[in-house]
């Protein structure tokens, strides 16, 4: 990355005036970006201040800081929503599904982007169809099918459909990304005596860190926040996931916003952490060394 900056200054042989204009523009650009960031961060801030308000305060002064900081909201939401258990379930279900999505999605994406074979087009079209499905329409058939398979009310009732529904996106992102990895990389590895599994595991996957991180973030968010599947396929209290806890405090006639906000504030923290961790991985892209090696 330093290379880029030196290059930039090195090639600009502009007059001082234009330099100044450019600097001014980049300053303006930064201002715009900061403005945009405020615009996108505000709801998060709002969620956290609202989580500490009484209901009355929430409605009376929606934008102001809490009059009294109601820490109880968080504790009560945690307790009433059974969020401890739900958090564990969500973590297990989400992580398992992300791992499966990555494993299956990358493999399939690799094959579909690199090999020519008879049914390739069919396979691509089939996965493509998966992108088009409104999930609500599959609820009843999935329910009936998983009943037959004795899967209902198990972690599998969530993990398997989650993975299956996320595979199309994972595969397409992987395909799109792998298409731009030069073929020479594999040819070199082939000469070194690697089989396809070796090439995939030792060469391709390490090169894919950015897209792996991207897929993981998207999948994580989807699984962590899913309400419909968790609502219908899970029965016992011990297996319930977080989104069900978040919906507890609203009954169609009214919503207890202090508790809802409290519960949401709790649930959003892991997603922020996961994003921040994975964001750095996205940036660990292809460095010059790994290509030449």
């Amino acid at each position, binding site marked *: 990355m330093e290379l880029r900056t030196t290059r930039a200054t090195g090639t600009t042989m502009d007059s001082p005036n234009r330099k100044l204009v450019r600097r001014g523009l980049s300053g303006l650009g930064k201002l715009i970006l900061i403005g945009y960031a405020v615009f996108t961060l505000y709801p998060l801030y709002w969620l956290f201040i609202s989580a500490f308000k009484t209901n009355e305060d929430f409605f009376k002064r929606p934008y102001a800081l809490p009059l009294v900081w109601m820490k109880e909201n968080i504790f009560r939401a945690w307790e009433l929503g059974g969020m401890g258990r739900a958090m564990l379930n969500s973590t297990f279900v989400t992580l398992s599904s992300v791992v499966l999505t990555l494993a299956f999605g990358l493999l399939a994406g690799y094959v579909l982007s690199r090999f020519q074979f008879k049914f390739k087009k069919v396979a691509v079209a*089939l996965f493509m169809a998966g992108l088009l499905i409104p999930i609500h329409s599959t609820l009843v058939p999935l329910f009936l099918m998983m009943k037959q398979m004795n899967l209902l009310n198990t972690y599998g009732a969530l993990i398997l459909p989650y993975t299956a529904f996320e595979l199309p996106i994972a595969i397409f992102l992987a395909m799109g990304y792998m298409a731009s990895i030069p073929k020479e990389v594999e040819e070199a590895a082939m000469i070194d005596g690697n089989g396809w599994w070796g090439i995939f595991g030792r060469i391709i996957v390490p090169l894919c860190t950015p897209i792996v991180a991207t897929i993981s973030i998207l999948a994580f968010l989807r699984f962590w926040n899913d309400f419909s599947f968790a609502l219908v396929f899970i029965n016992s209290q011990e297996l319930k996931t977080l989104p069900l806890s978040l919906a507890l405090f609203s009954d169609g006639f009214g919503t207890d916003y202090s508790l809802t906000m409290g519960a949401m504030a709790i649930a959003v923290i892991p997603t922020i952490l996961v994003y921040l961790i994975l964001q750095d991985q996205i940036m660990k892209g292809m460095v010059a060394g790994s290509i030449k090696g």
Partner: protein
Amino acid sequence: MPTALRSKGFIALALLPALLLFVVFVIIPIFWSAYYGVFEWKGIGASRFIGFGNYSEILQDPIFWRALKNNLILVISAILGQIPIALLLALVLLKNSFFSRFIRSAVFMPMVLSTVVVGLIWGYIYHPQFGLVNTVLEAIGLESWTRAWLSEPHINILAITIPINWSNIGPYMIIFIAALQNISPEIDDAANIDGAHGGKKLVYVTLPMIWSTVIVTMVLCISGSLKAFDHVMVMTHGGPAQSTELLATYMYNNTFRVYRYGYGSAVSTIIMIISALLIGINYLLTRRKAE
């Protein structure tokens, strides 16, 4: 040929788990659901085969066409809004400085929030009495422009596109950043030596390099916009008077609120057909452009 055989084995084995899982949990339910579409069925109790009765009723329902129109508005706004802004942000924020990292995280944050929070905060922004938009308009003397943004038909669907785009830019941005990482510095160098800068470099070097990703994001935009559900459900319930109805909310209401399960299934089959058509058109258009 041992290598050919080996690669055949590899292809089969590598594809198998994904394919198996996908066919069982996605493809079978789709066909199953499409099958319900030819029945008059309430989701419970007896069903009656009616052939394409549901389909012809759907095509005659003005609400369906309105929902489709609203979805197309979302598709256009997503392609014109989300993709260019996300790409621009990705290009600008490619550096690994603290500033870029901060802005990148900020841009992504709407995505981590639950739709309920997004809906609530935008409900306040658009609030007819003490909303931000109206307050600002009043402050700058444009009182005649103030309105109930989410209630007024024709305007409300446009008002809804903004929060949707706003939430979805983040993921597209990181997809682009991931793709841009993949451009090898040599190509970048070569472009610079050839004197390509700014817009020229973007069009002739960068875009072609990540073209496959651009297509992927367009496909995701189209399919995502046609499936859009959550934001509208939270902000307007598809109302008032079904003015912000989308295909997915139309399907959901028929399926779970009015107990017309067969009809709802037929709607979702139509949603898939329309998505497939649009993606096909997109494929033809973008292929020509790439060449």
